[in-house]
């Protein structure tokens, strides 16, 4: 399937920020199920190319402003062809040992309930076990926009029984790691099926934390991670999305999307990965200057006319 994507993130600063530095992981890479035909990232119309080719499989770029700035338009756009591989992700660049993805982070720490979840799902056939786990998560944590925040942990999401794709992915990853199965967080785009049970959330407008200090930097992670979508004048409905990947010896990395209870299909475009939503944040910024930041995101993803 051919996808034409235009992913626009607009940040506004009032008053203007003195200096902004960005780390961008907005560069999808080829694998057996995905081919990047063309891709371009710009920040305020300035083209940005990847600086680092990480062995974890991602591309990263840096951008920084040279003067005070009150608005950032970050655009990632291009054409990507996908095909269904039953969720199996092979042929990614990078040689990182899968064992690294057993590393537990604050957001993916397993508590008793998560360990019970994976214990219940346990069976000899790993693949079947993870399908079972995915189904369990889908059942136990209802998809509800706005029910959690970017800093909600897997354990908290399970406890509350509500969450968004970020929480589903974290929970899946936490459970895998608790069973010694390497797992990672994927940020990407999804073209929803017509019969998807996920409602498209309303236009995402997020006011993020205030960044203070005149002369020193104060961080603000733009790891929004929540599923956001907005209909654009020209493009059809689309979403940024998140899911998990688990490593099974003999097969390799396989994607699992507990929000939709499926392994990624050709409707999924894989953007970048990480140990959790923080690590897989497509945009991370550091702002100098006392300013208030607000964010608007829109993604247009559409099937090309053949």
């Amino acid at each position: 399937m051919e996808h034409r994507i235009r992913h626009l993130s607009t940040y506004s600063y009032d008053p203007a920020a003195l200096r902004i530095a960005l780390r961008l992981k907005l560069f999808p890479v080829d694998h057996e199920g995905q081919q990047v035909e063309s891709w371009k990232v710009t920040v305020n119309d300035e083209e940005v190319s990847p600086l680092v080719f990480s062995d974890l499989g991602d591309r990263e770029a840096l951008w920084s402003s040279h003067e005070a700035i009150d608005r950032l338009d970050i655009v990632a756009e291009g054409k990507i062809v996908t095909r269904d591989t039953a969720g199996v992700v092979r042929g990614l660049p990078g040689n990182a040992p899968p064992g690294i993805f057993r590393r537990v982070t604050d957001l993916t720490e397993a508590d008793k309930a998560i360990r019970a979840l994976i214990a219940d799902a346990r069976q000899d056939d790993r693949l079947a076990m993870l399908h079972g786990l995915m189904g369990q998560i889908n059942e136990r944590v209802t998809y509800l926009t706005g029910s959690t925040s970017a800093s909600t942990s897997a354990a908290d999401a399970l406890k509350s029984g509500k969450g968004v794709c970020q929480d589903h992915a974290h929970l899946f990853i936490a459970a895998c790691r608790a069973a010694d199965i390497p797992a990672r967080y994927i940020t990407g785009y999804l073209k929803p099926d017509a019969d998807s049970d996920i409602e498209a959330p309303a236009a995402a407008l997020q006011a993020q934390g205030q960044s203070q200090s005149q002369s020193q930097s104060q961080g603000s992670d733009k790891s929004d991670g929540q599923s956001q979508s907005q209909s654009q004048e020209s493009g059809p409905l689309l979403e940024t999305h998140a899911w998990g990947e688990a490593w099974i010896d003999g097969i390799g990395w396989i994607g699992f999307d507990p929000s939709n209870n499926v392994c990624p299909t050709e409707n999924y475009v894989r953007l970048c990965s990480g140990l959790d939503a923080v690590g897989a944040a497509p945009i991370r910024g550091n702002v100098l200057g006392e300013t208030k930041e607000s964010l608007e995101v829109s993604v247009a993803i559409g099937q090309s006319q053949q």
Partner: protein
Amino acid sequence: MGDPAGPRRPYRNVARWIEKTGIDLLNMRREEAEAIFRRIGITFAVYGEGGDPERLIPFDMIPRIFSAAEWRRVSAGVKQRARALNAFLYDIYHRGEIIRAGIIPEHLIYQNEAFLPEMVGVEPPGRVYSHIVGVDIVRTDAEDFLVLEDNCRTPSGVSYMLENREIMMRMFPELFARSNVAPVDTYPDELKKSLAEVAPPACKGDPCIALLTPGPFNSAYYEHSYLADLMGIELVEPGDLFVDEGKVWMRTTRGPQRLDVIYRRIDDDYIDPLAFRSDSMLGVQGLFNAYRAGNVTLCSAPGAGIADDKAIYIFVPDMVRFYLGEEPILKNVQTWRCALDDDRAYVLDNLKDLVVKEVHGSGGYGMLVGPKATKEERRVYAERIKADPDNFIAQPTLNLSTSPTLGEEGLSGRHVDFRPYCLVGADTRLVPGGLTRVALTKGSLVVNSSQGGGVKDTWVLSE
């Protein structure tokens, strides 16, 4: 001394001199020396203790002495260890052969807080991660040198090695004329050479090197400025640097100047708010990615700290065998891992004879010295171990050798340890000397400057 047979051989010359000089004169000289230290401003701040924010480390006038033969062994052992630790770092940030070979359990590496996943696959110039390896060594008898711990991040204290020697030569020139002491003042040149050798391959000509300090409020700021000065390189603070086009630049009176090698004395967490702690006020935005792109070399490499983690320490002799195919020249202190059931049981049964440390602690804080602790202190500590066994290791209280030390009432033996600074670039280099720390309280085993330890000059005698 305190040995009925008299001082060990290397000390004889000095012993005769002490006898001749007399304790009173020595004590007078010590006051002079402290006045000099104070005036020059060699001070050391201790966090959270209040009082004088720029206090002196007590200086003991009696040198600690190695014979040429002893030094050959220590030197070979330290270099061997430094090479093995760097090989280990390269391995775990690539294929992880030592894990695959079953020598170190995977979780001790990949789950370790000091392990940086973002470093996987990065190729540091010369495959060097830890460019300055400080190895803390103690001696238990005439034959045995044991390694207490390794310091692979940014070991501090080398300025004392240099300044202590300066002071000693100023105070007692006659003593140096009589003894054949190997010089240590080549250290800054050797360090600069090592740093230049690890410049990015794309850097042509003389690399531009700078020392990155958190600033004047850091406890080791004196050392930072002292070393930068002796090497003739800029002492920069994070605000002096910025990243543009993926390269690192220094703000100068002529405008931006490209930087090739950074000897950084800032912890991983704080070097880049875009990569690590986003609340870091110290970092340089984008520095880590400039490093990963190979446009600048950071010394030490981010993530090098895992090699000196106390949980990893016990495997260092295995690393020497695995990566170098050699037998370790320096032994480890016997160590029990409380994470292992048998070890923990032993530790809990024998607390009164053991020293217990937190795996991730440093600077002598949070440790239990069994023989010195009260019954109640041991009981409380035992509970801490049971609550979080993975976080503790234990070692026997060593019968540490003592070194003659000048006190109010004359000479007496005090426990010492020793930290040589091994430099790793294209070559592995070791200046004949290091930092001898001394526990000034009688019987105390804690030599950390933050806990009332002092320092001595260290002599390596030439043949």
